[in-house]
């Protein structure tokens, strides 16, 4: 895996004095200073509305900060060209809080999307995607459209899509919010497995159970400020 060549001493995500406000409103994130190194595993906690989703969006380049610097894989967002941004995004797996699945595509095609965008051939796709679908327990729904799935099932599709392309960074926004505890644990083990192979992982979650059980460092957001626990 190419991740073996990553320098683990340099941060792959770096935020310096970052502030974020929406449309001239108040800052929802204030003075964020954060460095995440390759291979690390973080939980991100905070009350609803604390800014977890906003922070994750900065990390996967869906937003620009109102102030401060964001660097991903050492690339400064301020100087990033569109194609460079696309290349970086292909290395980041994202589980969106509201899944962001494509309604008109089957589970199979939804999960295959990052592979197709990366130019993987269909043979590879038809070998690997069904395996993962079976693993997340959706074998019988491979050709189903997301709208016919339960919230928990959709969440698993979103997770499968995020991990299918072996991302170097996995960003998951409350990925287990809609599944039962057993499935949550199972999914966490999947993340753990990826982490062991070198993927850097940041998971926003409310589940104190998971945090206790997996004992990874916790980033906590409160009143727009970030603290490390």
């Amino acid at each position, binding site marked *: 895996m190419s991740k073996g060549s990553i320098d683990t001493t340099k941060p792959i995500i770096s935020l310096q004095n970052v502030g974020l406000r929406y449309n001239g409103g108040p800052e929802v994130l204030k003075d964020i200073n954060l460095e995440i190194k390759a291979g690390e595993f973080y939980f991100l906690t905070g009350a609803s509305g604390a800014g977890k989703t906003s922070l994750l969006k900065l990390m996967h380049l869906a937003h620009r900060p109102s102030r401060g610097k964001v660097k991903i894989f050492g690339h400064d967002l301020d100087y990033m060209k569109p194609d460079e941004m696309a290349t970086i995004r292909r290395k980041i797996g994202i589980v969106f809080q509201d899944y962001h699945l*494509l309604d008109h595509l089957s589970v199979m095609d939804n999960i295959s999307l990052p592979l*197709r965008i990366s130019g993987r051939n269909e043979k590879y796709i038809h070998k690997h995607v069904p395996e993962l679908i079976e693993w997340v327990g959706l074998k019988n729904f491979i050709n189903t459209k997301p709208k016919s799935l339960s919230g928990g099932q959709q969440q698993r599709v979103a997770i499968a899509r995020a991990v299918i392309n072996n991302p170097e960074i996995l960003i998951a926004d409350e990925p287990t919010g809609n599944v039962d505890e057993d499935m949550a644990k199972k999914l966490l083990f999947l993340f753990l497995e990826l982490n062991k192979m070198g993927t850097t992982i940041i998971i926003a979650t409310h589940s104190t159970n998971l945090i206790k059980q997996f004992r990874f460092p916790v980033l906590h957001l409160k009143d727009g400020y970030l603290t490390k626990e």
Partner: protein
Amino acid sequence: MFKTDIAFKTDINKGFLPFITAFMVFLASITFATALIGNNLANDWNTHMSNNITIQVLPDMKSKNPQKEIEERIKNITKILQQTPGIKSHYAMNLKETVELLKPWIGDFINNEIDIPLPRIITVETSNIIPVNMRALNDEIKNYSSLIKLETYETWMYEFKKTLSAVQTLLGIIIILILSTTAITISYATKSGLNINKKVINIMHMVGATNKYITNQFSRQMMKLSISGGIVGYMFSCFTIFLIKTFSKDLNDGIIANFQFSSYIYLYILIIPILAGIISKTSATLTIKKELKKMV
């Protein structure tokens, strides 16, 4: 091996786009075919008739014996023709043939015994190898008698060609208009297609698709729709031309006896769907690029 039709919703354009391209390609192909057939017709007449000259010998109505004078003139003209280089053959219609020829117009009441002075026609075939000095011949005939008219095919053909090229220019403009309308239509269809797919495009951006990738995929999908329409439009125009051809064959002995054209016409008009394809592709691609820039 690589899937090309991923991700986008094309439902809104699924019926509309193929239909509109089919219609446009049909219109443009038929227009183009008309221009081609005009050309064919002209060339046809050119090769078949350019070697023909018609000489009209008119009767002198004031004369006491016009018939006899006409025979005289015909004899002299024949002499002139024999001495003119480049004349392959010539034939003066006799009175009986002339009466036969005129019967449909004048009716049955004339016959060769009744001495009505009739104009007579000499048909002349010129050589392909030795050119005839038409002006000299014309002058000579005019000098001889003002009652003789020389009609070369060229003077007539010149007028015809002038008209034809004017008509063809007009047809060309119509084709350009049709194709421009196609381009504009494709652009609008692309825009509405992109609008429907805003969320899809956003997600594709999020998972790392480049604008180039999105443009390619999207224009390919638009092309699929418009190509299917183009093929249908082309087939419809071929069918229409085939019908015209078959129909005009039945009229073979009628006025448009020469209204036959080579089957290459089906190949020639293939250029229209191909042109439409190129124009659609360009229009779609440019529109997507422009719209994506707005989205980022």
